[in-house]
C-alpha cells in the first residue's frame, strides 16, 4: 500500500488502517505566486503548503518487550529524509520527514499489547517526483520536446563542443522563446559545460579537467535564467511539451538534458 524507502510500511504491523494526504493533486500556494519557482527554492514571494501524509497503524506485538522493539524499529527506520511511494503512485515518490509519531493504547487495554500508532510524514516540497529521470539529446538542428509533469522541473544540461558562444533556448508549445541562457566561451571538441539548474551550478571541463577562476563555467555564463521546464510552457492538456535547443555563434554544439518530472 505504502512504502517508505522502498520497504512496505505494513511489514511490522497487524494492519494499516488509515492513509491520508498522499493523493491530493493540488496543494495550497499562497499569493503572490511566481508561476515558475524552482522546486525546493521557495523565495520570499511564494509559500507552498507542505504535503502531510498520515498513516494509522494497528500494532499487535507478541509481547510488551516486542512493542518497545517495534517503537525502536520505527525510530531507526524512519529517521532522516524518506522516500514515500504508494500503489497509487507507481514510479513516483514524495520526499518527507517523519514527525513525532503518537502511540495510543486502546481503551481499557493497559494490560493488552495492542496499540494504535499514527505516523505523520511532512513533505516540505509537496510535489511527487518521478523515480526515473528522463534523458534526451540536445542539438542545434532540432527542438527537443521535454515532457513535464504538473509542476516545474530543474534539468541538468551538458553542452559539448566544438562551438563558440553557445546558448540554451527554451520554447513553449507555440514555439515562442521563453528563455535563453547565453554563454561567452570558445569550446573545443573535448570541452563541456554542465549546468545543474537545481543547485544553480555551472561547471566547465576542458578534456575532462574542471576549470576554475576566470576559466570556470560561471565565468562563461553571460545572461539569461537557467533553463526551467514548466508545465505552463506546454499545452494545457500536456500533449505538447516545451522544447529545448542549442544555438551557437559558430560551430555545432551537442548535449544532453536530464531531469525528473514533478507532479
Amino acid at each position: 500500500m505504502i512504502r517508505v524507502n522502498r520497504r512496505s510500511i505494513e511489514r511490522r504491523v497487524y494492519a494499516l488502517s488509515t492513509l491520508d494526504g498522499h493523493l491530493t493533486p493540488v496543494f495550497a500556494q499562497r499569493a503572490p505566486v511566481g508561476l515558475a519557482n524552482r522546486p525546493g527554492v521557495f523565495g520570499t514571494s511564494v509559500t507552498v503548503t507542505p504535503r502531510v501524509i498520515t498513516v494509522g497503524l494497528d500494532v499487535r506485538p507478541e509481547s510488551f518487550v516486542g512493542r518497545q522493539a517495534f517503537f525502536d524499529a520505527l525510530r531507526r527506520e524512519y529517521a532522516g529524509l524518506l522516500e514515500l511511494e504508494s500503489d497509487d503512485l507507481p514510479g513516483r515518490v514524495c520526499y518527507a520527514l517523519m514527525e513525532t509519531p503518537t502511540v495510543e493504547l486502546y481503551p481499557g487495554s493497559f494490560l493488552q499489547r495492542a496499540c494504535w500508532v499514527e505516523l505523520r510524514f511532512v513533505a516540505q516540497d509537496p510535489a511527487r517526483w518521478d523515480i526515473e529521470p528522463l534523458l534526451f539529446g540536445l542539438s542545434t538542428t532540432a527542438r527537443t520536446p521535454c515532457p513535464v509533469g504538473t509542476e516545474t522541473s530543474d534539468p541538468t544540461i551538458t553542452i559539448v563542443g566544438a562551438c563558440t558562444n553557445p546558448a540554451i533556448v527554451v520554447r513553449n508549445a507555440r514555439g515562442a522563446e521563453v528563455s535563453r541562457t547565453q554563454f561567452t566561451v570558445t569550446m573545443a571538441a573535448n570541452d563541456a559545460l554542465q549546468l545543474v539548474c537545481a543547485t544553480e551550478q555551472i561547471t566547465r571541463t576542458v578534456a575532462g579537467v574542471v576549470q576554475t577562476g576566470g576559466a570556470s563555467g560561471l565565468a562563461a555564463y553571460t545572461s539569461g535564467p537557467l533553463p526551467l521546464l514548466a508545465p505552463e510552457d506546454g499545452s494545457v492538456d500536456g500533449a505538447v511539451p516545451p522544447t529545448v535547443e542549442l544555438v551557437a555563434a559558430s560551430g555545432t554544439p551537442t548535449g544532453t538534458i536530464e531531469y525528473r518530472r514533478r507532479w
Partner: protein
Amino acid sequence: MSAVALSPRAVRSSGVPRLHSASRWRVMAARGLDAVTGQPASFARASVSSALDSRGATVSVGYGLPRREARECPNAAGEMVPVLGVRYTGDDCTWPLEWMPESGTLYVSGINLGTAQTAGAGLLYVGRDDNTGARLLVHGDGTTFRALWHTGTDDSEAILPLAVPNAARFALVAQLEDDGTSQRVRVRGMVNGQFSDWSPWGDAVARAAAFGAGAKLRVNRVGSAGTQGDFWLREAAWDAGHYDLHEMEARL
C-alpha cells in the same frame, strides 16, 4: 485513552531539513556520481562518447563525463520499464575509502551487459589501485557474480547462487563478517525480480586489519588495471553491519 509520544528522531541539526543517510557510504548513479554522504567521485574517460537517451536516440556525451543511458529492463512483474544507469564499458570511477575492514554489507545494483559473462571482470572493488593487500571485490565468473575477500594471503569466496544473464537488472549484497579473529564473505541477490538464497559463507580466513594506503572504492574494474566488463551502475552502498538486500535498499 492514554497517549504517549515517542521521542523525536535524531536528526543532525542543521536548521533545515537535509538529506542524510544511515548508510556510511552511498552513491546513486541516477542522481549524480558523488556519494550522497559527501565523498566526491573521481571519474575518467579519455574521450567524447555516446549513449542512448530515453527515446532510444544516440546522444553525444562530453569528454570525461559519465554516460547516463536509458535501458529497458524487466521489473518484478516482468514488464519492460525504462531505467537509467551510468554506463561503464570502458570508464573508470572511484570514491575515497573511509572505513577499515569491519563487519559490513556491500550493496550494488545495475544492469548487466557482459560483466557477469567476463571471468575476472570487476563489478565493485574495495582496495588499493595495484590490487595488493586486503581487498573486497565483486566480479564476474562467466555466468554470475562472485564476492571475494582477499586478505593478501588468504581467500574467502562466495558465489551468487543465481545466473545473471545479459541485459538483466540485478541487485546484490555481499556481507563481510569480521569477528576480530577471522573474516569471511557471503552473497545473495536479485536478478530480474527473482531472489536468490544466501550463498554459503566462504572460508574463514585470518583477519586482515587494514586495506592499506591509497585504497579506494572502484566501479567496473579490479584495481586500476584489472579487467573491465560492461554494466550500467544504478546504486552502490557500504554500511557497517549485516543487512539483507531489502534492508540495504531501505537504508539507501
